[in-house]
């Protein structure tokens, strides 16, 4: 079966569904390919909120939002893109509300807004602590509504494997049908990548099992440039031991971070913002406390006790449920053990402000993309907003492109190549099972490419990755069947992660400075705007990833010393 659409969206989280909705509303015939059912996507696990300068809680403006984002990015964000985000965010939020999104309300019945890290004003719109959940369900509702009205089809549990690129144009995506088996080519005159992040490269991560960087790796292998690969955000409050996310909203509601002595240690690192400093700053502070012996079990504590039961039950019920289920701690009575964990990747497939990539017909939006609005460090609440605003823009641009062009030639050759490679993988009988390689990758990345980075450890990690890649050549898939073969897709995902880890560490070694989430306390402790106020660009070659750089687009703000 080869399915044909005007626009094919790969991934059905917030960015993917928002792109599909906009492409459909622009008049395109839309196919959505997703390896999970749309509501299972990891956008749904976002908790704390989504940033827009509505001014419902205090005076605010898109310009203030833009400045906070630029500063948060450690001046690596592209300022024109950031201004687009902050100017268009309020309208996008109102539209979500009109679609029925169940946001929390303030005393006047307007959308409530809470304080968040490194934000000069309370501008985070939320729904208790399940904001991603209500967003993904409202987007799925709107997707179902359109599918009932016209040509919008969702291919659930279709695992996207390779981009089909012909004569420099992206013409579709080759997928493995998880439920029925078999490779299928879903073609479109435009393709939008919205496959999300890759936190699973790390052992300690908030990310779902599905977050393996599929789209980034597909793009890299197809010759597209990836931007700012060295910047992985570590979220300061991931639950010990499971690693699941405890929202920044806990600190937005007034929660404290304390060490084993009960000291609110953030006062020593960020005397003004305290617990609400930006995530890179808080994660480094926690790591310093833990490495200095002032933690317990490699963790510090998030203390909500002073908020009282009522506030915890109404504003943070999901966080309480997570703490009780996975750590046996009721935050009403006891502090929650937390530590930094891999959470969000700032880099990704390089796009312009409409989501367009270097390849004609290929677009990207959400965590897979790098516009860049987050630069070297993302502010909490900005990524959900990015999925909506840039998902919408990419959907519109992809539809306009598709409707203005004639279908390109689609040959069967890429599908035949894919079929042959797949058979080779399935036919291999002797070799190593993938899990050990996966676990070693996760542990070593955390150890050698984590919150703090050191030259020699990064070099060592490059060697480890190369060793794992060699072992991966002989990886063996035990399940040879066609039906729901997650053993096969798991092995392919591991291949994606090995490619991306290589690109990340290489870009990290080359960036000889400390900026945002990339911190080198021993050899390059300071930001170096002279040499490194620029994006890193990674391309795949036969010899591995190759690095170059790109200017940062600036509009109003010149780099300043960044403190909180």
């Amino acid at each position: 079966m080869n399915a044909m659409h005007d626009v094919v969206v790969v991934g059905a989280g917030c960015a993917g569904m928002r792109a599909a909705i906009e492409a459909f509303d622009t008049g395109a015939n839309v196919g959505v390919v997703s390896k999970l059912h749309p509501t299972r996507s990891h956008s749904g696990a976002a908790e704390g909120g989504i940033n827009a300068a509505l001014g419902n809680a205090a005076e605010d403006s898109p310009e203030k939002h833009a400045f906070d984002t630029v500063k948060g990015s450690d001046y690596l964000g592209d300022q024109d893109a950031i201004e687009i985000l902050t100017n268009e965010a309020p309208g996008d939020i109102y539209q979500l509300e009109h679609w029925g999104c169940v946001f929390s309300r303030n005393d006047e019945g307007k959308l409530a807004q809470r304080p968040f890290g490194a934000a000069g004003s309370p501008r985070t719109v939320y729904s208790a602590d399940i904001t991603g959940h209500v967003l993904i369900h409202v987007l799925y509702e709107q997707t179902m509504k359109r599918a009932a009205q016209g040509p919008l089809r969702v291919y659930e549990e279709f695992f996207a494997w390779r981009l089909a690129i012909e004569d420099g144009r992206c013409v579709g995506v080759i997928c493995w049908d998880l439920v029925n088996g078999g490779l299928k080519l879903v073609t479109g005159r435009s393709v939008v990548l919205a496959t999300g992040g890759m936190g699973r490269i790390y052992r300690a991560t908030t990310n779902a099992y599905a977050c393996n960087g599929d789209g980034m790796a597909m793009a890299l292998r197809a010759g597209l440039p990836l931007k700012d690969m060295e910047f992985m955000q570590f979220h300061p409050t991931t639950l010990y031991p499971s690693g699941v996310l405890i929202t920044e909203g806990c600190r937005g509601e007034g929660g404290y971070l304390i060490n084993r002595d009960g000291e609110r240690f953030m006062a020593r690192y960020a005397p003004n913002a305290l617990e609400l400093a930006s995530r890179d700053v808080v994660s480094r502070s926690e790591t310093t406390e833990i490495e200095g012996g002032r933690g317990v079990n490699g963790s510090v504590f998030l203390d909500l006790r002073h908020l009282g039961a009522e506030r915890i039950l109404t504003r943070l019920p999901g966080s309480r449920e997570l703490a009780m289920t996975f750590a046996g701690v009721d935050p009403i009575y006891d502090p929650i053990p937390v530590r930094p964990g891999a959470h969000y990747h700032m880099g990704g497939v390089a796009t312009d402000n409409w989501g367009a990539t270097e390849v004609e017909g290929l677009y990207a939006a959400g965590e897979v993309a790098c516009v860049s609005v987050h630069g070297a460090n993302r502010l909490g609440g900005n990524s959900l907003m990015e999925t909506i605003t840039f998902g919408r823009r990419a959907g519109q641009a992809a539809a306009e492109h598709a409707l203005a062009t004639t279908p390109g030639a689609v040959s069967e050759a890429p599908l035949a190549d894919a079929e042959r490679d797949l058979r080779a993988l399935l036919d291999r009988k002797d070799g190593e099972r993938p899990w050990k390689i996966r676990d070693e990758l996760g542990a070593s990345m955390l150890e050698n490419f984590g919150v703090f980075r050191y030259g020699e450890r990064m070099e060592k990690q490059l060697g480890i990755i190369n060793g794992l890649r060699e072992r991966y050549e002989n990886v063996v898939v035990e399940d040879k069947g066609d039906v729901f073969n997650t053993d096969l897709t798991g092995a392919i995902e591991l291949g994606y992660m090995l490619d991306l880890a290589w690109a990340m560490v290489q870009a990290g070694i080359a960036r000889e400075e400390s900026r945002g989430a990339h911190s080198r306390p021993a050899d390059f402790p300071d930001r170096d705007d002279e040499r490194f106020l620029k994006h890193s660009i990674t391309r795949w070659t036969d010899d591995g990833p190759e690095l170059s750089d790109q200017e940062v687009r600036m509009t109003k703000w010149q780099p300043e010393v960044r403190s909180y």
Partner: protein
Amino acid sequence: MQVALKIWRFDAQKGERALKEYEIDAPGEATLLDCLDIVKDRVDGTLAYRKSCRMMICGSCGMRMDGAAVLACKTRMYEIAEAGHVPVISAMGNLPIVKDLVVDMEPFWGKIRAVSPWLEPGYVDPGEKEHVVAQTRMDVIHKESLCIMCGCCVSECNSMESDPDFLGPAALAKGMRFVGDPRDQATVERLQSYSGEHGIWDCTRCYFCQERCPKGVDPRDAIAKLGAEAMREGIDSDMGAKHAKWFVTSAKTTGWLRETELVPKTQGIAKSMKEVKFAMGLLKKGKVPPPFPPHVAKHVEEARALYDLVKHDGEQGAAGIVQGEKALGRLEHHDDGGEAAERGPYGPGSFVKPYLPGEEESAREV
């Protein structure tokens, strides 16, 4: 810890079913999902199950443990393993099995689509900004909007087992999410649609959905609210609605259920004439009381007082049913909190009070 599991394997291509036992070594904090991962990685790579977020929000990993639906990622194994129990893991019920623990969710989603699961904004233009709605009015659907569509309720639904076309608990809870939303303008159309055949009145009130929902959505409560709203709107022509209404009338007037009148009041005179022979048989065997004189309860005034109370509360429709709000906050862990609650957040044995660096101990206030 050592964990043993029995897993119902199913090979769709061969149509073969087998109960297989696995023994693994897992960390003490492991969940059922962690254990399945260990089995798949190290013992048998062909095992199939769905998973993604592992934090109770994506809804992928619904399955049955010892015959009852659970989220695998939410189920901690320590106590089960320590007790030496070997749980039986199987696919969810009421849905066709694709492979092992993976079910075909399409029948589930088809029913979700059948309730028009999107906001119908009507003709009122909200303007450029948000609708202004009090939080208390949104609280009505707080619980229903927590639903993660995992299918645990549908797996356990007794009514669906006998009528596969029953809309079922998840879809009806989704329906209540819109009926209770003050921004939705299709309330009457929805209530008419949900009140038809295979709709709200086909729920048998077994409460299994309420018991097995891992998120505290309590679909049965949502169905009750839909019933209350339908009655309030005068949408009561379905047999189920008439049946319910007669129960109420009967209890109000005589304090007892008058079975002989129940059938004609529910099905109508013409249809119930066909049942006369069957009814006479029941009468002969003493299975129903003679209709005359009507059987009046000794303390009928108590039944009437109860009726007045319920009627007063019921005037608010769904808002009169207060069960379940703030569901997540109360979920499973209630308010007792055990030992921790006894000592309180700062009592003896609690974690030290937080303080700012340099703050005098005597000045430490919380």
